[in-house]
Protein backbone atom coordinates (compact mmCIF):
# COMPACT_ATOMS: atom_id res chain seq x y z
CA UNK A 1 0.00 0.00 0.00
CA UNK A 2 2.99 2.31 -0.11
CA UNK A 3 2.05 3.89 -3.40
CA UNK A 4 -1.44 4.51 -2.16
CA UNK A 5 -0.14 6.76 0.59
CA UNK A 6 2.02 8.59 -1.84
CA UNK A 7 -0.81 9.13 -4.30
CA UNK A 8 -2.97 10.38 -1.46
CA UNK A 9 -0.36 13.01 -0.74
CA UNK A 10 -0.34 13.94 -4.40
CA UNK A 11 -4.03 14.65 -4.55
CA UNK A 12 -3.78 18.33 -3.75
CA UNK A 13 -7.35 19.13 -4.66
CA UNK A 14 -8.58 17.12 -1.70
CA UNK A 15 -6.65 19.41 0.55
CA UNK A 16 -8.20 22.84 0.27
CA UNK A 17 -5.56 24.50 2.43
CA UNK A 18 -3.08 25.01 -0.34
CA UNK A 19 -3.43 28.72 -1.00
CA UNK A 20 -0.44 30.94 -0.48
CA UNK A 21 0.27 31.62 3.17
CA UNK A 22 1.16 35.13 4.25
CA UNK A 23 4.57 34.50 5.79
CA UNK A 24 7.95 35.17 4.17
CA UNK A 25 8.78 31.49 3.79
CA UNK A 26 6.70 28.80 2.18
CA UNK A 27 7.07 25.06 2.15
CA UNK A 28 6.87 23.44 -1.28
CA UNK A 29 3.87 21.10 -1.58
CA UNK A 30 5.91 18.84 -3.86
CA UNK A 31 9.35 18.35 -2.31
CA UNK A 32 9.10 20.15 1.02
CA UNK A 33 11.76 22.72 0.12
CA UNK A 34 11.47 25.98 2.05
CA UNK A 35 11.25 28.82 -0.46
CA UNK A 36 11.44 32.57 0.13
CA UNK A 37 8.46 34.61 -0.98
CA UNK A 38 10.52 36.81 -3.33
CA UNK A 39 12.02 33.81 -5.04
CA UNK A 40 8.64 32.15 -5.35
CA UNK A 41 7.25 35.22 -7.04
CA UNK A 42 10.19 35.31 -9.41
CA UNK A 43 9.59 31.69 -10.33
CA UNK A 44 5.89 32.48 -10.93
CA UNK A 45 4.93 30.46 -7.86
CA UNK A 46 6.57 27.24 -8.95
CA UNK A 47 9.31 25.29 -7.19
CA UNK A 48 12.62 25.55 -9.04
CA UNK A 49 13.69 22.24 -7.52
CA UNK A 50 10.73 19.95 -8.27
CA UNK A 51 8.62 22.14 -10.62
CA UNK A 52 5.64 21.94 -8.29
CA UNK A 53 3.03 24.55 -9.28
CA UNK A 54 1.53 26.39 -6.32
CA UNK A 55 -2.12 27.26 -6.57
CA UNK A 56 -2.48 30.95 -7.43
CA UNK A 57 -5.34 33.26 -8.32
CA UNK A 58 -6.45 35.67 -11.02
CA UNK A 59 -4.28 38.51 -9.72
CA UNK A 60 -1.10 36.47 -10.20
CA UNK A 61 -2.09 35.06 -13.61
CA UNK A 62 -3.00 38.47 -14.98
CA UNK A 63 0.32 39.82 -13.65
CA UNK A 64 2.52 37.56 -15.73
CA UNK A 65 0.30 36.71 -18.73
CA UNK A 66 -0.74 40.19 -19.80
CA UNK A 67 1.34 43.18 -20.89
CA UNK A 68 1.94 45.41 -17.88
CA UNK A 69 -0.88 47.86 -17.28
CA UNK A 70 -3.02 46.51 -20.12
CA UNK A 71 -5.71 44.81 -18.02
CA UNK A 72 -9.14 46.43 -17.97
CA UNK A 73 -11.52 44.52 -15.77
CA UNK A 74 -15.12 43.91 -16.85
CA UNK A 75 -18.20 43.46 -14.64
CA UNK A 76 -16.16 44.22 -11.56
CA UNK A 77 -19.10 44.65 -9.23
CA UNK A 78 -21.22 41.69 -10.18
CA UNK A 79 -22.15 39.54 -7.21
CA UNK A 80 -24.39 36.67 -6.19
CA UNK A 81 -28.00 37.16 -5.13
CA UNK A 82 -28.63 33.95 -3.19
CA UNK A 83 -31.63 33.08 -5.39
CA UNK A 84 -32.69 30.03 -3.34
CA UNK A 85 -32.06 31.58 0.09
CA UNK A 86 -29.91 28.56 0.67
CA UNK A 87 -28.79 27.56 4.14
CA UNK A 88 -26.59 24.68 5.20
CA UNK A 89 -24.34 25.16 8.24
CA UNK A 90 -24.67 28.88 7.55
CA UNK A 91 -26.74 31.00 5.17
CA UNK A 92 -25.24 31.24 1.69
CA UNK A 93 -25.64 35.02 1.71
CA UNK A 94 -23.43 35.20 4.79
CA UNK A 95 -20.95 32.80 3.25
CA UNK A 96 -20.73 35.12 0.24
CA UNK A 97 -20.26 38.22 2.38
CA UNK A 98 -17.57 36.57 4.47
CA UNK A 99 -15.73 35.22 1.43
CA UNK A 100 -15.77 38.63 -0.24
CA UNK A 101 -14.28 40.12 2.91
CA UNK A 102 -11.68 37.37 3.31
CA UNK A 103 -10.49 37.20 -0.32
CA UNK A 104 -11.12 40.70 -1.61
CA UNK A 105 -12.80 39.03 -4.59
CA UNK A 106 -16.45 39.42 -5.61
CA UNK A 107 -16.85 35.84 -6.88
CA UNK A 108 -14.88 32.93 -8.31
CA UNK A 109 -13.92 34.51 -11.65
CA UNK A 110 -12.49 37.79 -12.88
CA UNK A 111 -12.77 38.81 -16.52
CA UNK A 112 -11.45 41.62 -18.64
CA UNK A 113 -9.59 42.81 -21.68
CA UNK A 114 -5.86 43.19 -22.07
CA UNK A 115 -2.97 42.53 -24.42
CA UNK A 116 -0.38 39.77 -24.74
CA UNK A 117 2.63 40.98 -26.76
CA UNK A 118 0.46 43.88 -27.90
CA UNK A 119 -2.19 41.47 -29.19
CA UNK A 120 -5.63 42.29 -27.71
CA UNK A 121 -7.32 39.41 -25.90
CA UNK A 122 -10.32 38.80 -23.68
CA UNK A 123 -9.28 36.91 -20.59
CA UNK A 124 -11.06 35.20 -17.70
CA UNK A 125 -9.39 33.61 -14.72
CA UNK A 126 -11.02 31.65 -11.94
CA UNK A 127 -10.13 31.97 -8.27
CA UNK A 128 -10.16 28.73 -6.34
CA UNK A 129 -9.95 30.74 -3.12
CA UNK A 130 -13.56 31.83 -3.62
CA UNK A 131 -15.74 28.87 -2.44
CA UNK A 132 -13.52 26.37 -4.22
CA UNK A 133 -13.74 28.15 -7.54
CA UNK A 134 -17.33 26.98 -7.77
CA UNK A 135 -19.49 28.13 -10.67
CA UNK A 136 -22.80 29.77 -9.85
CA UNK A 137 -24.75 32.47 -11.66
CA UNK A 138 -22.03 35.12 -11.38
CA UNK A 139 -19.29 32.92 -12.83
CA UNK A 140 -21.61 31.81 -15.64
CA UNK A 141 -22.71 35.36 -16.46
CA UNK A 142 -19.22 36.85 -16.35
CA UNK A 143 -17.80 34.09 -18.55
CA UNK A 144 -20.74 34.52 -20.95
CA UNK A 145 -20.14 38.25 -21.20
CA UNK A 146 -16.43 37.65 -21.77
CA UNK A 147 -17.34 35.30 -24.63
CA UNK A 148 -19.70 37.96 -26.04
CA UNK A 149 -16.91 40.54 -25.83
CA UNK A 150 -14.50 38.23 -27.66
CA UNK A 151 -17.07 37.70 -30.37
CA UNK A 152 -17.94 41.36 -30.69
CA UNK A 153 -14.35 42.61 -30.90
CA UNK A 154 -13.03 39.50 -32.63
CA UNK A 155 -10.39 39.18 -29.95
CA UNK A 156 -9.12 35.75 -28.91
CA UNK A 157 -10.53 34.37 -25.68
CA UNK A 158 -8.44 32.83 -22.92
CA UNK A 159 -10.06 31.18 -19.89
CA UNK A 160 -7.90 29.93 -17.01
CA UNK A 161 -9.89 27.42 -14.99
CA UNK A 162 -9.51 26.21 -11.45
CA UNK A 163 -12.68 24.89 -9.92
CA UNK A 164 -14.27 22.17 -7.87
CA UNK A 165 -17.37 22.32 -10.09
CA UNK A 166 -20.83 23.88 -10.01
CA UNK A 167 -21.89 25.74 -6.87
CA UNK A 168 -24.40 23.69 -4.88
CA UNK A 169 -25.91 26.69 -3.09
CA UNK A 170 -27.54 27.96 -6.27
CA UNK A 171 -29.06 24.59 -7.15
CA UNK A 172 -30.24 24.04 -10.71
CA UNK A 173 -29.32 27.64 -11.61
CA UNK A 174 -25.66 26.66 -11.19
CA UNK A 175 -26.19 23.64 -13.42
CA UNK A 176 -27.66 25.90 -16.09
CA UNK A 177 -24.41 27.87 -16.20
CA UNK A 178 -22.85 24.85 -17.96
CA UNK A 179 -25.51 25.18 -20.65
CA UNK A 180 -25.23 28.94 -20.83
CA UNK A 181 -21.45 29.14 -21.25
CA UNK A 182 -21.40 26.24 -23.73
CA UNK A 183 -24.12 27.86 -25.84
CA UNK A 184 -22.17 31.10 -25.90
CA UNK A 185 -19.02 29.24 -26.94
CA UNK A 186 -20.96 27.59 -29.78
CA UNK A 187 -21.80 31.09 -31.02
CA UNK A 188 -18.17 32.16 -30.68
CA UNK A 189 -17.00 29.14 -32.67
CA UNK A 190 -19.22 30.22 -35.55
CA UNK A 191 -17.35 33.53 -35.78
CA UNK A 192 -13.92 31.84 -35.95
CA UNK A 193 -12.45 33.57 -32.94
CA UNK A 194 -9.95 31.30 -31.16
CA UNK A 195 -10.59 30.13 -27.63
CA UNK A 196 -7.71 28.82 -25.54
CA UNK A 197 -8.69 26.89 -22.44
CA UNK A 198 -6.01 26.71 -19.75
CA UNK A 199 -6.64 24.09 -17.06
CA UNK A 200 -4.91 24.42 -13.72
CA UNK A 201 -5.08 22.44 -10.51
CA UNK A 202 -7.87 21.48 -10.00
CA UNK A 203 -10.33 21.66 -12.89
CA UNK A 204 -13.21 19.30 -12.12
CA UNK A 205 -16.98 18.86 -12.27
CA UNK A 206 -19.22 21.29 -14.09
CA UNK A 207 -16.44 23.57 -15.26
CA UNK A 208 -14.66 20.68 -16.98
CA UNK A 209 -18.00 19.45 -18.36
CA UNK A 210 -18.58 22.82 -20.04
CA UNK A 211 -16.24 25.60 -21.14
CA UNK A 212 -12.92 24.13 -19.94
CA UNK A 213 -13.25 21.17 -22.35
CA UNK A 214 -14.53 23.25 -25.28
CA UNK A 215 -11.34 25.05 -26.22
CA UNK A 216 -9.87 25.14 -29.70
CA UNK A 217 -6.63 24.55 -27.85
CA UNK A 218 -6.35 22.85 -24.47
CA UNK A 219 -3.38 23.82 -22.34
CA UNK A 220 -2.76 22.30 -18.91
CA UNK A 221 -0.25 23.13 -16.22
CA UNK A 222 1.89 20.13 -15.20
CA UNK A 223 0.37 17.69 -12.70
CA UNK A 224 -2.99 19.48 -12.52
CA UNK A 225 -5.98 17.41 -11.48
CA UNK A 226 -8.47 17.48 -14.36
CA UNK A 227 -11.64 15.41 -14.51
CA UNK A 228 -15.38 15.16 -14.23
CA UNK A 229 -15.89 13.14 -11.05
CA UNK A 230 -13.54 13.73 -8.14
CA UNK A 231 -11.02 11.02 -7.19
CA UNK A 232 -12.81 10.29 -3.92
CA UNK A 233 -16.11 9.55 -5.65
CA UNK A 234 -14.45 7.34 -8.25
CA UNK A 235 -12.59 5.45 -5.56
CA UNK A 236 -15.91 4.83 -3.78
CA UNK A 237 -17.56 3.69 -7.01
CA UNK A 238 -14.93 1.18 -8.09
CA UNK A 239 -13.89 0.18 -4.57
CA UNK A 240 -10.24 0.23 -5.55
CA UNK A 241 -7.32 2.62 -5.36
CA UNK A 242 -6.73 4.78 -8.39
CA UNK A 243 -3.68 4.30 -10.56
CA UNK A 244 -0.82 6.69 -10.03
CA UNK A 245 -1.14 9.85 -12.09
CA UNK A 246 -4.83 9.21 -12.79
CA UNK A 247 -6.68 12.39 -13.86
CA UNK A 248 -3.46 14.39 -13.96
CA UNK A 249 -2.55 16.62 -16.93
CA UNK A 250 -0.09 14.06 -18.29
CA UNK A 251 -2.75 11.34 -18.13
CA UNK A 252 -5.26 13.54 -19.96
CA UNK A 253 -2.74 14.35 -22.65
CA UNK A 254 -2.05 10.63 -23.06
CA UNK A 255 -5.80 9.98 -23.42
CA UNK A 256 -6.15 12.73 -26.01
CA UNK A 257 -7.87 15.53 -24.12
CA UNK A 258 -5.04 18.02 -23.65
CA UNK A 259 -3.01 19.54 -26.49
CA UNK A 260 -0.03 20.91 -24.59
CA UNK A 261 1.28 20.77 -21.05
CA UNK A 262 2.94 24.06 -20.36
CA UNK A 263 5.10 25.08 -17.41
CA UNK A 264 3.90 28.32 -15.92
CA UNK A 265 7.21 29.92 -16.84
CA UNK A 266 6.47 29.36 -20.55
CA UNK A 267 2.71 29.96 -20.42
CA UNK A 268 2.72 33.49 -21.77
CA UNK A 269 5.09 32.65 -24.61
CA UNK A 270 3.15 29.52 -25.63
CA UNK A 271 -0.20 31.30 -25.62
CA UNK A 272 1.31 34.10 -27.68
CA UNK A 273 2.69 31.60 -30.18
CA UNK A 274 -0.64 29.77 -30.53
CA UNK A 275 -2.48 33.04 -31.07
CA UNK A 276 0.04 34.04 -33.73
CA UNK A 277 -0.76 30.81 -35.62
CA UNK A 278 -4.52 31.01 -35.28
CA UNK A 279 -5.28 34.70 -35.31
CA UNK A 280 -2.92 36.98 -37.20
Amino acid at each position, binding site marked *: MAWFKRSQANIQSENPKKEMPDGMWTKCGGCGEIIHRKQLEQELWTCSKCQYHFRIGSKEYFSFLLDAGSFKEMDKK*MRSMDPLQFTDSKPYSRRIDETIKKTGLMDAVRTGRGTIDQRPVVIACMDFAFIGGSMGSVVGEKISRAIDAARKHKHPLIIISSSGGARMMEGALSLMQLAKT*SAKLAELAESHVPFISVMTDPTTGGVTASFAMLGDIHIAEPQALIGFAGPRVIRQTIGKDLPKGFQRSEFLQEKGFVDIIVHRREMREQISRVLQHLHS
Partner: protein
Amino acid sequence: MAKVILDFERPIFELEQKIVEMRKYSDNLDIAHEIKSLEQRVDQLRRSVYNNLTRWQRVQLARHPDRPYTLDYIGMLLTDFVELHGDRHQGDDKAIVGGFGTLGHQTVLMLGHQKGRDTKSNIYRNFGMMNPEGYRKALRLMQLAAKFNRPVITLLDTPGAFPGLEAEERGQAEAIARNLFVMSRLPVPIIVVIIGEGASGGALGIGIGDRILMFENSWYSVIAPESCSSILWRSWDYKEQAAEALRLTAPDLIEQGIVDRIVPEPLGGAHRLPDVAGATLKSILIEELTKLKKIPVPKLLQKRVEKFAAMGAWKE
Protein backbone atom coordinates in the same frame (compact mmCIF):
# COMPACT_ATOMS: atom_id res chain seq x y z
CA MET B 1 -50.99 -2.31 -7.67
CA ALA B 2 -47.59 -0.95 -6.86
CA LYS B 3 -45.10 -3.56 -5.72
CA VAL B 4 -43.01 -1.02 -3.85
CA ILE B 5 -44.83 1.03 -1.25
CA LEU B 6 -43.22 4.23 0.01
CA ASP B 7 -43.70 5.22 3.66
CA PHE B 8 -46.15 7.98 2.92
CA GLU B 9 -48.04 5.74 0.49
CA ARG B 10 -48.53 3.08 3.19
CA PRO B 11 -51.77 4.36 4.86
CA ILE B 12 -53.38 4.78 1.44
CA PHE B 13 -52.23 1.35 0.37
CA GLU B 14 -53.64 -0.23 3.53
CA LEU B 15 -57.05 1.35 3.02
CA GLU B 16 -57.06 0.25 -0.59
CA GLN B 17 -56.23 -3.29 0.50
CA LYS B 18 -59.08 -3.21 2.98
CA ILE B 19 -61.52 -2.14 0.27
CA VAL B 20 -60.35 -5.00 -1.94
CA GLU B 21 -60.88 -7.44 0.93
CA MET B 22 -64.35 -6.11 1.67
CA ARG B 23 -65.38 -6.31 -1.96
CA LYS B 24 -64.96 -10.07 -1.72
CA TYR B 25 -67.98 -10.09 0.60
CA SER B 26 -69.93 -7.32 -1.05
CA ASP B 27 -73.13 -9.38 -1.55
CA ASN B 28 -74.24 -7.86 1.72
CA LEU B 29 -75.75 -4.37 1.26
CA ASP B 30 -74.53 -3.09 4.65
CA ILE B 31 -70.96 -3.65 3.54
CA ALA B 32 -71.57 -1.84 0.26
CA HIS B 33 -72.34 1.24 2.25
CA GLU B 34 -69.20 0.80 4.30
CA ILE B 35 -67.14 0.30 1.18
CA LYS B 36 -68.41 3.56 -0.17
CA SER B 37 -67.44 5.46 2.93
CA LEU B 38 -64.01 3.82 2.92
CA GLU B 39 -63.57 4.83 -0.70
CA GLN B 40 -64.36 8.39 0.23
CA ARG B 41 -61.85 8.20 3.02
CA VAL B 42 -59.08 6.88 0.81
CA ASP B 43 -59.88 9.51 -1.77
CA GLN B 44 -59.59 12.23 0.85
CA LEU B 45 -56.41 10.74 2.18
CA ARG B 46 -54.89 10.62 -1.32
CA ARG B 47 -55.68 14.25 -1.86
CA SER B 48 -54.27 15.35 1.47
CA VAL B 49 -51.07 13.32 1.01
CA TYR B 50 -50.38 14.04 -2.65
CA ASN B 51 -51.31 17.69 -2.59
CA ASN B 52 -48.92 18.32 0.28
CA LEU B 53 -45.84 16.41 -0.74
CA THR B 54 -42.53 17.56 0.68
CA ARG B 55 -39.63 17.97 -1.71
CA TRP B 56 -38.02 14.80 -0.42
CA GLN B 57 -41.27 12.85 -0.96
CA ARG B 58 -41.28 14.03 -4.56
CA VAL B 59 -37.70 12.84 -4.95
CA GLN B 60 -38.87 9.44 -3.71
CA LEU B 61 -41.75 9.41 -6.20
CA ALA B 62 -39.34 10.39 -8.99
CA ARG B 63 -37.30 7.30 -8.09
CA HIS B 64 -40.26 4.98 -7.67
CA PRO B 65 -39.26 1.67 -9.29
CA ASP B 66 -42.70 1.31 -10.89
CA ARG B 67 -42.50 4.71 -12.51
CA PRO B 68 -42.55 4.69 -16.33
CA TYR B 69 -39.09 4.87 -17.89
CA THR B 70 -37.97 6.04 -21.33
CA LEU B 71 -38.77 2.75 -23.08
CA ASP B 72 -42.25 2.76 -21.49
CA TYR B 73 -42.95 6.22 -22.87
CA ILE B 74 -41.55 5.25 -26.26
CA GLY B 75 -43.95 2.29 -26.24
CA MET B 76 -46.91 4.47 -25.27
CA LEU B 77 -46.17 7.49 -27.48
CA LEU B 78 -44.56 6.27 -30.68
CA THR B 79 -45.47 3.84 -33.44
CA ASP B 80 -43.04 2.19 -35.87
CA PHE B 81 -40.18 2.78 -33.46
CA VAL B 82 -36.72 1.79 -34.72
CA GLU B 83 -34.11 1.70 -31.97
CA LEU B 84 -30.57 2.62 -33.01
CA HIS B 85 -27.41 1.61 -31.21
CA GLY B 86 -23.86 2.73 -30.60
CA ASP B 87 -21.61 5.74 -30.98
CA ARG B 88 -19.71 4.20 -33.95
CA HIS B 89 -16.54 4.48 -31.97
CA GLN B 90 -16.50 2.85 -28.55
CA GLY B 91 -19.68 0.83 -28.13
CA ASP B 92 -23.37 0.90 -27.28
CA ASP B 93 -24.22 2.46 -23.93
CA LYS B 94 -27.27 0.65 -22.56
CA ALA B 95 -27.95 3.48 -20.08
CA ILE B 96 -29.39 5.47 -22.96
CA VAL B 97 -31.85 4.36 -25.61
CA GLY B 98 -32.84 6.22 -28.72
CA GLY B 99 -34.32 5.91 -32.17
CA PHE B 100 -36.83 7.20 -34.66
CA GLY B 101 -40.55 6.71 -34.35
CA THR B 102 -43.86 8.29 -35.31
CA LEU B 103 -45.49 10.71 -32.89
CA GLY B 104 -48.97 11.53 -34.14
CA HIS B 105 -48.22 12.08 -37.81
CA GLN B 106 -44.56 12.95 -37.72
CA THR B 107 -41.23 11.23 -37.34
CA VAL B 108 -39.23 12.28 -34.29
CA LEU B 109 -36.00 11.19 -32.68
CA MET B 110 -36.74 10.18 -29.11
CA LEU B 111 -33.91 9.37 -26.76
CA GLY B 112 -33.46 9.14 -23.04
CA HIS B 113 -31.79 7.63 -20.02
CA GLN B 114 -32.94 4.09 -19.28
CA LYS B 115 -33.00 2.55 -15.82
CA GLY B 116 -33.69 -1.08 -14.98
CA ARG B 117 -36.43 -2.40 -12.71
CA ASP B 118 -34.58 -5.20 -10.98
CA THR B 119 -30.97 -5.96 -10.11
CA LYS B 120 -30.26 -7.77 -13.35
CA SER B 121 -31.74 -5.13 -15.64
CA ASN B 122 -30.23 -2.36 -13.53
CA ILE B 123 -26.78 -3.81 -14.00
CA TYR B 124 -27.47 -4.11 -17.73
CA ARG B 125 -28.59 -0.46 -17.82
CA ASN B 126 -25.90 0.68 -15.38
CA PHE B 127 -28.69 2.21 -13.24
CA GLY B 128 -29.27 4.77 -15.97
CA MET B 129 -25.79 6.25 -15.52
CA MET B 130 -24.17 7.04 -18.84
CA ASN B 131 -20.58 6.66 -19.93
CA PRO B 132 -18.95 8.98 -22.48
CA GLU B 133 -19.98 6.67 -25.34
CA GLY B 134 -23.59 7.19 -24.23
CA TYR B 135 -23.31 10.95 -24.70
CA ARG B 136 -21.59 10.36 -28.03
CA LYS B 137 -24.31 7.92 -29.07
CA ALA B 138 -26.89 10.61 -28.25
CA LEU B 139 -24.87 13.15 -30.21
CA ARG B 140 -24.66 10.88 -33.25
CA LEU B 141 -28.41 10.30 -33.23
CA MET B 142 -29.17 14.00 -32.79
CA GLN B 143 -26.91 14.93 -35.69
CA LEU B 144 -28.67 12.28 -37.74
CA ALA B 145 -32.01 13.85 -36.82
CA ALA B 146 -30.69 17.26 -37.87
CA LYS B 147 -29.44 15.87 -41.17
CA PHE B 148 -32.91 14.58 -42.03
CA ASN B 149 -34.73 17.48 -40.40
CA ARG B 150 -36.50 15.53 -37.68
CA PRO B 151 -37.33 17.08 -34.30
CA VAL B 152 -35.61 15.73 -31.20
CA ILE B 153 -37.29 14.78 -27.91
CA THR B 154 -35.06 13.84 -24.99
CA LEU B 155 -36.26 12.20 -21.76
CA LEU B 156 -34.14 12.78 -18.64
CA ASP B 157 -34.03 10.19 -15.88
CA THR B 158 -30.63 9.57 -14.33
CA PRO B 159 -28.98 9.56 -10.90
CA GLY B 160 -25.93 11.08 -12.64
CA ALA B 161 -23.20 10.43 -15.17
CA PHE B 162 -21.22 7.31 -14.28
CA PRO B 163 -18.25 8.22 -12.04
CA GLY B 164 -16.01 5.36 -13.13
CA LEU B 165 -12.38 4.96 -14.07
CA GLU B 166 -12.97 4.21 -17.75
CA ALA B 167 -15.54 7.00 -17.97
CA GLU B 168 -12.82 9.45 -16.97
CA GLU B 169 -10.27 7.89 -19.31
CA ARG B 170 -12.63 8.24 -22.23
CA GLY B 171 -13.46 11.85 -21.39
CA GLN B 172 -16.76 12.00 -19.52
CA ALA B 173 -16.43 15.78 -19.11
CA GLU B 174 -15.57 16.36 -22.76
CA ALA B 175 -18.47 14.19 -23.91
CA ILE B 176 -21.00 16.13 -21.82
CA ALA B 177 -19.51 19.52 -22.77
CA ARG B 178 -19.59 18.58 -26.47
CA ASN B 179 -23.29 17.75 -26.26
CA LEU B 180 -24.11 21.08 -24.61
CA PHE B 181 -22.14 22.83 -27.33
CA VAL B 182 -23.72 20.98 -30.27
CA MET B 183 -27.27 20.87 -28.88
CA SER B 184 -27.21 24.67 -28.42
CA ARG B 185 -27.02 25.04 -32.19
CA LEU B 186 -28.67 21.86 -33.50
CA PRO B 187 -30.86 23.13 -36.36
CA VAL B 188 -34.05 21.23 -35.48
CA PRO B 189 -36.57 21.76 -32.65
CA ILE B 190 -35.59 20.06 -29.37
CA ILE B 191 -37.97 19.34 -26.50
CA VAL B 192 -36.53 18.16 -23.20
CA VAL B 193 -38.68 16.31 -20.66
CA ILE B 194 -37.53 15.49 -17.14
CA ILE B 195 -39.48 12.28 -16.49
CA GLY B 196 -37.84 11.18 -13.22
CA GLU B 197 -34.45 12.14 -11.87
CA GLY B 198 -32.50 15.01 -13.38
CA ALA B 199 -29.17 14.76 -11.60
CA SER B 200 -26.56 17.28 -12.58
CA GLY B 201 -24.37 17.22 -15.69
CA GLY B 202 -25.32 13.61 -16.35
CA ALA B 203 -28.89 14.76 -17.05
CA LEU B 204 -28.04 18.10 -18.65
CA GLY B 205 -25.78 16.27 -21.15
CA ILE B 206 -28.94 15.54 -23.17
CA GLY B 207 -30.90 18.47 -21.75
CA ILE B 208 -30.50 21.51 -24.00
CA GLY B 209 -33.63 22.42 -25.90
CA ASP B 210 -36.23 24.95 -26.98
CA ARG B 211 -38.83 23.81 -24.47
CA ILE B 212 -38.04 22.25 -21.11
CA LEU B 213 -40.89 20.22 -19.64
CA MET B 214 -40.95 18.55 -16.28
CA PHE B 215 -43.23 15.89 -14.85
CA GLU B 216 -45.01 16.96 -11.70
CA ASN B 217 -43.14 14.48 -9.49
CA SER B 218 -39.67 14.65 -10.96
CA TRP B 219 -36.61 16.51 -9.70
CA TYR B 220 -33.81 18.41 -11.40
CA SER B 221 -30.75 19.92 -9.72
CA VAL B 222 -27.03 20.37 -9.64
CA ILE B 223 -26.58 17.47 -7.23
CA ALA B 224 -28.64 14.70 -5.62
CA PRO B 225 -29.91 15.56 -2.11
CA GLU B 226 -27.88 12.72 -0.51
CA SER B 227 -24.61 13.86 -2.05
CA CYS B 228 -25.38 17.47 -1.19
CA SER B 229 -26.01 16.38 2.40
CA SER B 230 -22.75 14.46 2.57
CA ILE B 231 -20.73 17.41 1.28
CA LEU B 232 -22.37 20.40 2.96
CA TRP B 233 -23.63 18.76 6.15
CA ARG B 234 -20.80 16.19 6.22
CA SER B 235 -23.31 13.42 6.83
CA TRP B 236 -25.78 11.41 4.73
CA ASP B 237 -28.57 12.12 7.21
CA TYR B 238 -29.64 15.55 5.98
CA LYS B 239 -31.13 14.53 2.66
CA GLU B 240 -34.56 15.96 3.51
CA GLN B 241 -33.03 19.33 4.41
CA ALA B 242 -30.82 19.22 1.33
CA ALA B 243 -33.84 18.50 -0.89
CA GLU B 244 -35.64 21.48 0.65
CA ALA B 245 -32.61 23.76 0.30
CA LEU B 246 -31.92 22.79 -3.31
CA ARG B 247 -35.48 23.64 -4.42
CA LEU B 248 -35.49 20.91 -6.98
CA THR B 249 -39.17 20.25 -7.77
CA ALA B 250 -41.05 21.20 -10.92
CA PRO B 251 -42.81 24.22 -9.37
CA ASP B 252 -39.42 25.37 -7.99
CA LEU B 253 -37.82 25.17 -11.41
CA ILE B 254 -40.67 27.07 -13.04
CA GLU B 255 -40.07 29.80 -10.46
CA GLN B 256 -36.33 29.81 -11.23
CA GLY B 257 -37.05 30.31 -14.93
CA ILE B 258 -35.48 27.01 -15.94
CA VAL B 259 -38.54 24.91 -16.79
CA ASP B 260 -41.29 26.07 -19.16
CA ARG B 261 -44.13 23.74 -18.34
CA ILE B 262 -45.18 21.08 -15.86
CA VAL B 263 -46.57 17.79 -17.16
CA PRO B 264 -49.37 16.84 -14.74
CA GLU B 265 -49.39 13.33 -13.30
CA PRO B 266 -52.31 11.21 -12.14
CA LEU B 267 -52.97 11.61 -8.39
CA GLY B 268 -50.35 9.57 -6.56
CA GLY B 269 -47.79 9.72 -9.35
CA ALA B 270 -47.18 8.49 -12.90
CA HIS B 271 -46.68 4.92 -11.66
CA ARG B 272 -50.31 4.70 -10.49
CA LEU B 273 -51.70 5.16 -14.00
CA PRO B 274 -48.85 5.05 -16.52
CA ASP B 275 -51.22 5.14 -19.51
CA VAL B 276 -52.68 8.42 -18.30
CA ALA B 277 -49.19 9.91 -17.82
CA GLY B 278 -48.24 8.72 -21.32
CA ALA B 279 -51.36 10.15 -22.96
CA THR B 280 -50.86 13.50 -21.23
CA LEU B 281 -47.24 13.70 -22.37
CA LYS B 282 -48.19 12.73 -25.91
CA SER B 283 -50.76 15.48 -26.33
CA ILE B 284 -48.44 18.09 -24.77
CA LEU B 285 -45.52 17.08 -27.02
CA ILE B 286 -47.66 17.28 -30.16
CA GLU B 287 -48.93 20.70 -29.11
CA GLU B 288 -45.42 22.01 -28.33
CA LEU B 289 -43.89 20.59 -31.52
CA THR B 290 -46.58 22.19 -33.65
CA LYS B 291 -45.64 25.57 -32.19
CA LEU B 292 -41.88 25.04 -32.51
CA LYS B 293 -42.06 23.89 -36.12
CA LYS B 294 -43.56 27.24 -37.12
CA ILE B 295 -40.44 29.11 -35.99
CA PRO B 296 -37.76 29.59 -38.68
CA VAL B 297 -34.53 27.78 -37.73
CA PRO B 298 -32.26 30.86 -37.33
CA LYS B 299 -34.83 32.41 -35.00
CA LEU B 300 -35.23 29.12 -33.13
CA LEU B 301 -31.47 28.91 -32.51
CA GLN B 302 -31.23 32.52 -31.46
CA LYS B 303 -34.05 32.04 -28.97
CA ARG B 304 -32.47 28.83 -27.69
CA VAL B 305 -29.20 30.58 -26.79
CA GLU B 306 -31.07 33.54 -25.32
CA LYS B 307 -33.17 31.19 -23.21
CA PHE B 308 -30.13 29.71 -21.45
CA ALA B 309 -28.27 33.03 -21.41
CA ALA B 310 -31.08 34.49 -19.28
CA MET B 311 -30.72 31.82 -16.58
CA GLY B 312 -29.09 32.88 -13.33
CA ALA B 313 -29.42 35.49 -10.62
CA TRP B 314 -26.86 38.22 -10.05
CA LYS B 315 -26.68 41.89 -9.14
CA GLU B 316 -24.21 44.60 -10.11
